[in-house]
């Protein structure tokens, strides 16, 4: 069963397998450091299914939940 970044629980860390989604989005996510192999930790979730904050390569970056769902772990 494939899991993605939006399935992470707060504080959980996982390694990225693939980055999917629309080409523009997938490229920008990778340019931000979300590349296959990178270790990502979920650190915060906004209310009502809002954006989620992840730490990757020492930075903290917020993504919309639907975008995070394009990144498989």
């Amino acid at each position, binding site marked *: 069963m494939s899991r993605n970044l939006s399935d992470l629980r707060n*504080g959980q*860390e996982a390694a990225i397998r693939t*980055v999917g*989604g*629309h*080409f*523009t*989005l*997938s*490229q*920008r*996510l*990778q*340019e*931000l*450091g979300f*590349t*296959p*192999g*990178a*270790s*990502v*930790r979920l*650190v*915060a*979730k*906004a*209310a*009502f*299914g*809002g*954006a989620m*904050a992840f*730490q*990757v*390569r*020492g*930075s*903290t*970056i*917020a*993504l*919309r939940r*639907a*975008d995070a769902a394009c990144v498989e772990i």
Partner: protein
Amino acid sequence: MSDSADAKVVVLLGAPNCGKTSLYNHLTGSRFKTVNYPGATVEYSVGKLRSVGDAPQGSAKSADCHTPGTKPQLEAGSVQIMDTPGIISIVPRSQDEEVALSALTALDSVVGGPHKSPHLLVVLLDATQPARHLPLVREVIKAGFPTVVALTMNDLARRKGWDLDPNQLSRLLGIPVVEIDGRAGIGLPDLISSIEVMLPETPVTARIPTTLSDEQIQDNFRWADDIAARSIRNGSADPAKVNPGLGRIDQVVLHPVLGLVIFAAVMTGLFWSVFSAAGPFMDLTETVFGWLGAQVGSVLPDGWLKGLLVDGIIAGLGAVFVFVPQIAILFLALGLLEDSGYLARGAMIVDRLLSAIGLNGKSFVPLLSGAACAIPAAMAARTIPGRRERYLTLLVIPLMSCSARLPVWGLLLGFLVPPDRPLVGGLALTGIYLASLVFASAVAVVGGKILRIEPSHTGFQVELPLWRPPTFRTVVVSSWDRTVSYVKRAGLTILAVSVAFWVFMTFPSPENSAMMMLGKLLDPLFAPMGLDWKVGVALIAAFAAREVFVSALAVVYSVQGAEESTDGLLSAMRNATFDGTSIPVFTVSSVMGLIVFFLIALQCLTTVAVMRKEVSNRFAFGQMAGFVLLAWLLATATVQGLRLVGVP
């Protein structure tokens, strides 16, 4: 400019929020506002490198920086420094990133001069996130640019558990790396020396890729992770791998429930403080202008000069400048937010809400700065990557209650709310801001149905910068600068319109003036709003600038009855009646109608000009016509509706 054509161009490039503007200010002696938000700079700026003797003489933290001890020989003014918006990658994905990239490939079209590319790049590398920012360094070196790396924020990196060695980085990259502190100006002499050493006579022709493949991006990161890990001087943490979790502030601010509460409190506090904290300062300004008017009035003999000075200029300027303290406090509060790092958190929290109405979390900062002025707000919208979301944001920005409306709110709320109830006044002002948000949301939803642009697949991503305690200097200096420029800009317009108003109200005669004829001609427009011709002409004048409404009213009523003007504009409004009757002009319903009108009407020609530039003629004029028409319709509906239910 002949000398700037000869000057060599050095472009500052780097990720968003890595300190380019701080460095630019130090290198050129400018004082552009620096903000702790990724995407604060959306336009390039160019300035001359000031002579090295003027630069702060702080010693570099590492004594063994590249080219140590070389005395800089660059002649002041022979080098131009260019600040650019932050970029994530060499392939641009939003308007602000395109602005930055055009500085690399189409310099001639951006700043003129003979060259397409700059002579040298100074790429800023944020030591707190080297693994993320090194790929850009690799891409510009590959593209063939002569490059110097300025290593910033090493002090903050130490807090995270590592410390990058500029010498080691320099060996690994094969280009000079200089450690600097852009905020304090430390390390600048060494940076300037390196610039001098690397600066070629003529710029190279660089080749910038238009796309990167997934493999290239991933390879860049593998390389960057490796370089970052090998450049650590002290500390055991690997910058490419460490994800330590949230700090204590973020655990509260980004908490799903507490975060929302804090967000609501911060926003309410921001607008509430504008009204409540300004009170004493406003009384002071009012006293000063009252005194000034009385002094001038007692010195000058009766006549047209006295009328022009006292009833025209002093009454007009005073009526608006009473509200300058409110505006200064708004700028100060916004500055505190900007400098702290909260804005990116706010963007994250409201993305859910904003995306529901067709906007984006990245619309938050443009909309918030719309509370100060629509013009920088429209430019800030360049950071929104999707065209559809950007246009919708631009559509509603003029509906944000900008600082030019503050004097209008102050006057109208002053009429509605008794002066001994500042708490109610603060709440009423917060209510006005809330109403503008509700209305803007509705317009965004409707606009989204009308606007025929495909949604783009750009999503929402924002980097959350490290928290910084706001520095007194940055916040106070920048809000002072913004207030002064407001006073200058608004002051000139008000002065001009007040004088013109006084003239047309006084000639041919005060009883039968030119303004009266115009006003009576347009009366059918104002009568449905419950207003007479005097308020009507003030509304027309407000198209020069919204705050002119207040000064124009002041002039109208002080020309009409000079002895009443000392009691202030408010009492003149309470006594104002329709000509030849005892029916009051200003009632609860007509004032509510005016509030609705000012909430919606696009009365700012500069905004129209900026919208033409950011989008198109059709968009800009359509927006203006639409919002003015809508304002008139809804104001009329408000007045007539209130009267129908018995409100005076």
